[in-house]
């Protein structure tokens, strides 16, 4: 609906049930708010991110809820409002981009401008192709255009209609970091003048760090946390989110005792004798909990360390070392297996080899309890 007042804030309260046999049924039940600028929707696949975007765009119909963009009510189950997708003024860039294969880049871009006069249509299509630096590909069909440029054209196509909301479903997957950053810069430059809310779906931690704005974390159809990327992703509260956020070690543990005064509790890892101290959580002695630790947060020593503030020192043996890029992934057996990231330089300096005895050092606050 084309309103007089520009859409500036998007609020969506959505409940949608997808029925299916057994485990395939799924309930999306979220309430989110997005102000102008980029809001990242982060979560493992199957968390409901795409269903959420589809609901905002009008491609999926929530069982109940209310979706408002600025002053436009797009959906309100209580009042029986359901604005059809073509009238919502939402722009949507799909994961597959969905460029029309039989139309040239320019025809793709001007597809949404059908109500305008021919000259104006051409003018606006050309202007936006220039803004996204793909004006040279005007006459090409999508099959003749490279990945990154296709993504730029898809963005241009969705933005040329002056939408009130922009939805991006992993629009930059498969691009290298530099290209991603360049496209995001162009997007930011475009939005500086427009000031519309942008919902940006990703499951890549890297992208969240690069975009560095407000994050809403979804898991299994619920919002599990929202805030700055550091707050949301560095202290994940759910196992799947922790995995998605790059916590390589997720260990089950049993609570031994709580030390309220110190703000910590002792847990035993798995069935081993290995005991560590983790931050105090909502648990009682005897409860089973999950502890998530980043592989990069673990220190590795070849002698038993002394005089450390870190409370957790465990000894074990290296099972394997595997170099991946500039990181060496060490698997260490301390009765439970830890994955530890070290640099190739450290491997050389410490003469690390499989079978070598080592000590792992773990700060209490590097251990996160997850559900």
């Amino acid at each position, binding site marked *: 609906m084309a309103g007089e007042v520009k859409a500036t804030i998007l609020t969506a309260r959505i409940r949608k049930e997808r029925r299916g046999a057994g485990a395939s049924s799924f309930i999306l039940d979220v309430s989110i708010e997005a102000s102008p600028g980029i809001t990242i929707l982060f979560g493992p696949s199957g968390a409901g991110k795409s269903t959420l975007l589809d609901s905002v*765009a009008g491609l999926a119909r929530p069982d109940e809820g209310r979706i408002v963009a600025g002053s436009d009510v797009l959906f309100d189950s209580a009042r029986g409002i359901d604005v059809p997708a*073509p009238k919502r003024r939402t722009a949507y860039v799909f994961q597959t981009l969905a460029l029309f294969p039989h139309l040239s880049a320019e025809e793709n871009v001007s597809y949404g401008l059908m109500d305008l006069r021919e000259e104006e249509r051409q003018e606006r299509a050309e202007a936006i192709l220039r803004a996204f630096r793909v004006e040279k590909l005007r006459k090409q069909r999508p099959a003749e255009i490279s990945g990154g440029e296709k993504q730029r054209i898809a963005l241009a196509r969705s933005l040329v*209609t002056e939408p009130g909301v922009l939805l991006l479903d992993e629009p930059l997957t498969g691009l290298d970091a530099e290209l991603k950053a360049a496209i995001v810069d162009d997007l930011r430059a475009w939005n500086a003048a427009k000031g519309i809310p942008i919902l940006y779906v990703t499951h890549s931690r890297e992208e969240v760090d690069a975009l560095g704005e407000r994050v809403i974390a979804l898991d299994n159809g619920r919002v599990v946390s929202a805030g700055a990327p550091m707050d949301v992703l560095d202290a994940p509260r759910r196992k799947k989110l922790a995995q998605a956020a790059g916590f390589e070690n997720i260990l089950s543990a049993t609570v031994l005792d709580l030390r309220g005064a110190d703000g910590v509790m002792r847990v035993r890892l798995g069935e081993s004798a290995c005991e560590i101290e983790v931050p105090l959580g909502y648990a009682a002695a005897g409860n089973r909990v999950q502890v998530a630790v980043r592989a990069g947060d673990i220190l590795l020593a070849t002698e038993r360390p002394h005089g450390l503030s870190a409370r957790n020192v465990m000894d074990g043996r290296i099972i394997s070392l595997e170099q991946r890029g500039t990181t060496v992934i060490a698997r260490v057996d301390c009765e439970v297996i830890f994955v530890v990231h070290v640099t190739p330089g450290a491997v050389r300096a410490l003469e690390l080899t499989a079978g070598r005895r080592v000590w792992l050092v773990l700060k209490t606050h590097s251990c996160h309890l997850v559900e």
Partner: protein
Amino acid sequence: MEALWLSMKLAAWVAAILLVIGMPVAYWLAYSNWRGKFLLESLVALPLVLPPTVLGFYALVAMGPRGPLGKLWIALFGHGLAFTFSGLILASVLYSFPFAVQPLVASFEGVDRRLLDASAVLGAGSSRTFCRVILPLSLPGVVTAAVLSFAHTLGEFGVVLMVGGNLAGVTRTVSIDIYDRVQSLEYGEANRMALVLLAISFSVLCVVYAVNRRVWTPWPAK
């Protein structure tokens, strides 16, 4: 040669009519979520398994002066429908229906759903989405539907015999003509006509298979 010309005319009419009425039916079959969709699917496919004489029989009864179609036709045009060229077209449309609808459904279903979503989000209603996205991307299916219904009508025999009879210049199509000539032992004539029909059928199938391999399309192959 009169019979061949008549067959061609009939087949062209039928193919044209089927494209027009086949599209909305195929569109509905491809995109409807109705649970009872299989009913219409079965109905559309019925002429594939039904003996042409059965279809022709019911068509004849419906078109007769006391049948509902026949009555309607007499009220509208002042003459009956059975044993006329129009009647023949009507019966042939029914008979070739699946040959037009099924390729259309298959090609509509083959269009990526996200393209339809993209079109909707860009402000296009369903008719614009159909004309600008679905139809151009289903072009091979449209060609196949037209060619198959043309060829199938060209070769039909049982339905024509039941509904049209054998009136020279009105309902005597090429397949009936061949049958007639064999009956009267004119093997040479029959062979000439049969060869022509064989050649036409073969070239038509060549077109269909060539199109379905996407030997030509207006956009480069994926």
